[in-house]
């Protein structure tokens, strides 16, 4: 049985203002789902210490309540009182797990994280166990007996941070250089910036990134240096767009008007041209994040990115090339990389559609 209700279509009236940019974005199912996935992933990355840990969320030990898992959660570990989060009961990392079978009489109540394994915890009994509900290793274990789900959850931080920070950094650098070249023109543009942009456009950047990270001492390889290397080799793409936009707009009437009012070149660039050039830059940046996530995964996969035992999706994935029978090492971290890259690309499409009405389709 159908009930008559107001239908959106009938409410739309001629002459009413078109959908806002946000509505256009939300109306694209792919873009909205991509964004939802990324938000979920960001939450998972942030709360990873509570989701996957070998320390209890809550424990009452000798009558004292403690929240030891919160030690890894950034602002809380500073705010909570020290003895509320610290608990060095026993040196045995499996102590918590054993509470199920052989409970310690001093423990009156305990709450385990959903995945009761830390990303670095090696359990000899669990080496190369396949995924199973029974063992609690839902994504299986790697060759050192570390839980793959725990490592994937903690590895999300690396992918998200490197992706966003690298694009933020390369965006700042690219826009600054591109704007200077496009606005000022002259020898700076002709001799240096344009040549660099052209060179990087035709050179496989992957070669350069590999050359840079591979000659580094492994002790310098962490997410910050990788971020800097990716940013340093990818800013020319951003500079190309910024340069084109600034060149196009420096002759526009509104710029001439602002100049006539006595605006300084810096003010012209930042307050008048940049806001008008934001659309292509923002769209490009979103796609660049997908590229940076992929790049970090690729170099970690080749063993010259984030170094084990620290988890990153790329270095978890690389283990499968040594143990081809352990398919779970290949399936789960790879799926995480794929879904993240897909989400950023979908969000990029959505942003383009929402901000740029001239875009195709």
């Amino acid at each position, binding site marked *: 049985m159908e009930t008559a209700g107001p239908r959106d279509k009938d409410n739309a009236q001629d002459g009413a203002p078109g959908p806002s940019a946000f509505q256009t974005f939300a109306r694209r199912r792919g873009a909205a789902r991509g964004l939802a996935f990324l938000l979920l992933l960001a939450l998972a990355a942030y709360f990873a210490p509570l989701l996957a840990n070998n320390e209890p969320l809550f424990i009452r030990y000798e009558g004292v309540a403690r929240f030891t898992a919160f030690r890894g959660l950034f602002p809380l570990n500073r705010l909570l009182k020290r003895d509320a989060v610290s608990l060095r009961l026993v040196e045995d990392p499996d102590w918590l797990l054993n509470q199920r079978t052989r409970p310690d009489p001093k423990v009156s109540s305990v709450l385990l994280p959903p995945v009761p394994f830390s990303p670095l915890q090696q359990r000899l009994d669990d080496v190369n166990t396949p995924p199973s509900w029974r063992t609690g290793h839902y994504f299986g274990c790697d060759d050192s007996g570390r839980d793959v789900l725990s490592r994937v959850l903690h590895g999300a931080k690396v992918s998200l941070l490197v992706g966003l920070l690298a694009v933020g950094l390369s965006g700042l650098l690219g826009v600054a250089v591109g704007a200077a070249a496009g606005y000022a023109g002259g020898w700076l543009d002709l001799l240096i910036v344009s*040549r*660099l942009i*052209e*060179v990087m456009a*035709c*050179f*496989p*950047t*992957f*070669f*350069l990134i*590999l*050359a*840079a990270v*591979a*000659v*580094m*001492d*492994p002790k*310098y390889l962490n997410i910050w240096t990788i971020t800097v290397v990716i940013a340093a080799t990818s800013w020319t793409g951003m500079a190309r767009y910024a340069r084109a936009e600034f060149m196009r707009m420096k002759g526009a009437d509104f710029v001439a008007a602002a100049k006539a009012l006595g605006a300084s070149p810096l003010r012209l660039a930042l307050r008048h041209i940049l806001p008008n050039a934001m659309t292509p830059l923002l769209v490009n940046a979103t796609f660049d994040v*997908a590229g940076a996530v*992929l790049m970090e*995964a*690729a170099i970690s*996969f*080749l063993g*010259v990115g984030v170094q084990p035992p620290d988890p990153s999706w790329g270095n978890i*994935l690389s283990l*499968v*090339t040594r143990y*081809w*029978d352990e*398919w779970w090492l*290949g*399936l789960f971290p*790879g*799926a995480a*990389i*794929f879904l993240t*890259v*897909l989400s950023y*690309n*979908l969000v990029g499409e959505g942003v383009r559609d929402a901000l740029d009405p001239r875009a*195709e389709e």
Partner: protein
Amino acid sequence: MLSYLTRRAVLMVPTVLLITAVVFAVMKLAPGNPFSAAQASGEAAVRQMNPQDYQILLTRYGLDRPWYVQYGRWLGTLATGSLGDSFSERRPVSEVFFNAPARVLAEGGSLRSALNQVLSSKFAATLFLNALALFLMVVVAVPAGFHAAARQGGWFDRASSAALYVLYSLPNFWVAILLILLVGVRLQWLPFIGMRSDGFEAMSAAGKAWDLLKHAALPALCLSYGGLAFLSRFARGALLDVLSQDYIRTARAKGVSEAAVLYRHGLRNALIPLLTLSGILLPALISGSVIIEQIFSWPGLGQMYIKAIYSRDYPLIMAESLMGAVAVLLSNLATDVAYTVADPRVRLE
């Protein structure tokens, strides 16, 4: 034409210089050198090297000089037509790439054996893989893109654009792993390690070709699908663009059949912009081939690059970067020339 080609070739020189200088500077400015790398991970003999010997080695290979001096020396060697000697392979870089056909000839070997040297080289392995990938890409993507455009909004158009979108986001190293796990390990249909089976030399010519194709199938597939997605979107756009032109409307108005409009007027013109794509596809292919060759143990330049990087073999890294840059620049030039052949309205200036 000749003067145009010369001018372009001359313009390539500063670009190549800039690229190699950037790669060189990046490598040299990062901390560490081949001997410190060997000391950190290498054999006991290297680890126990005393500081004087270490210094002697650095001086011997010129690694104690500033990077621009070393770069100048590298350029000097290059000017004599040599790519230098590989540190880790302990032979000339050109031999690492192409084997030694010239030496075989000089030592009185037959032309056939010299040719065999080249055919079994790392360069040939990479060229074969990339050519196969490019072939796969064009053969699948162009008809798919054109078909989607000819029936714009149809089920094929919608399904393929969704599928291609997913393909575009799939990391090729993950696809390689999934294919190996499924086709190689589980089903055991195709080999996934190396380029030749044991006993390759004893096979007949047809058997050899079949063996090579079987080994190349998975890596070529992994290399091609990313560009395939891109190329087919581009082909679709190109045909749609042509179909909106006035001369198509004219053709329809004068009663040309829809098939003739599509195949005679549409397709031919839509092929021209596809030529420009090689400049975009080639860097992606070269980058992809590094990681794919590594996964499939394909004995080519890509795998060599990873090895060179692990051992900080500067001459080898530089030579590979140089080859990559030159390949891309040459393909850009070839594209421009091909464009004038395909489209007489375009003139080389």
